[in-house]
């Protein structure tokens, strides 16, 4: 999908109007951002926004996140284990200490 984020009042207004006029192309709308369907028409709207508002518009192409393909096993397993922890008040790093789960600092350093 195409994620369009706006950074000025005018760009936000244009996006709002575009979303209202082209509901079929809009997957989701959030305040000043919207997810557009990945059709040629979605691209057409995105290009128009970029053309009109240049730097006030950010457009990203998004993909569904598949935790089995896009994240290392260790990360996925750490998340599952942490969500199933006994005591809900344990911070992650204390939970991970002394286990095979990666420390949060290390995960922050590593790009996917």
């Amino acid at each position, binding site marked *: 999908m195409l994620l369009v984020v706006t*950074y*000025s*009042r005018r760009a*936000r207004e244009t996006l709002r109007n575009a979303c209202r006029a082209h509901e079929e192309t809009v997957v989701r709308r959030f305040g*000043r951002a919207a997810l557009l369907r990945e059709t040629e028409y979605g691209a057409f709207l995105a290009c128009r926004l970029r053309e009109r508002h*240049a*730097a*006030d518009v*950010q457009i990203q192409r998004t993909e569904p996140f598949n935790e089995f393909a896009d994240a290392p096993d260790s990360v996925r397993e750490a998340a599952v284990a942490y969500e199933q922890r006994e005591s809900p008040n344990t911070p992650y790093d204390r939970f991970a200490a002394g286990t095979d789960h990666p420390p949060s600092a290390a995960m922050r350093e590593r790009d996917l």
Partner: protein
Amino acid sequence: MTAATPPPSFTLVLPDDTQLSGPVVDLRGRPTAPPRSALVRAVRAGGPVPEPAPAVLGPPPGPAHDHVGLLRTDRSFDRRAALAALAAARGVQTPHDPALATARRRLRAMSASPLDTSELREARRRAAEAGSQTERLRERVATIRGRVTALRAANDDVDKRVLEDAEDSLAAATRRLSEVSTRRVAAGQRLALLEARARNARDDRERRLRLEDRIGNLERAQRDARVAAVAPAFAAARDRIATRVSTGGDTVSRSTALTGALAAGRLAPPRAPLVVAPDVVAFLGGVAAAADALAAPLLVR
């Protein structure tokens, strides 16, 4: 409150250089006088204007003039906007004024953080081109390689020169592919760099947008407060005006738009002349009565 001091005088300069002065200028006897819209424009523009338009010399219009500057029977009246402008003209202060002033000052002080989008655009175009070129060459190399392999397999049956030619073109294509791949990597890195820079610039834009939203909210609150501050005086003035014009006929007394505009005109501090249509003057009971009712300089047309 304004009736004690006489309304300020002004001078109307017609396109034929005729000059008419006074707190009230009556153009009813002059069929060649400029149309009402031209007069309103002249009042708002002030001072000399390009010929052959009329000019009005006198106090500049206040904030409410947009809403009360033209009084005719078929007008519309945006009550909220008019009351807010009226309050501003009367110098009404609200608790939101200081915060709004601060926020506006901060917005002005913010750097515009210009971002060269053409550079980024060019980088996107280059990266895309380098990408598709690489794909095309990769396919070409694969095709030639297939051909060379086939020729080698059939070694005995082929002309040596044909095989050599094919090997040469494979070498050339491979070389070209490696050049283009290098360029592709460079283009990708450049694009990533510029995109990272654009992301940083967006933080500034984000802060700016938040401040603009804050200003928008404060402006709404200020407007509400302004409207509330003058609403009672406005209601009273409108009742008085409605009584005055009730003899003028159903059309006017029922036109809340006109009575609203008249009441706001009465409450606005007298500055630039109000352009009044003759039928409105008649409803108010003549020029003198209209000047008294509105307590403002008038231009009757």
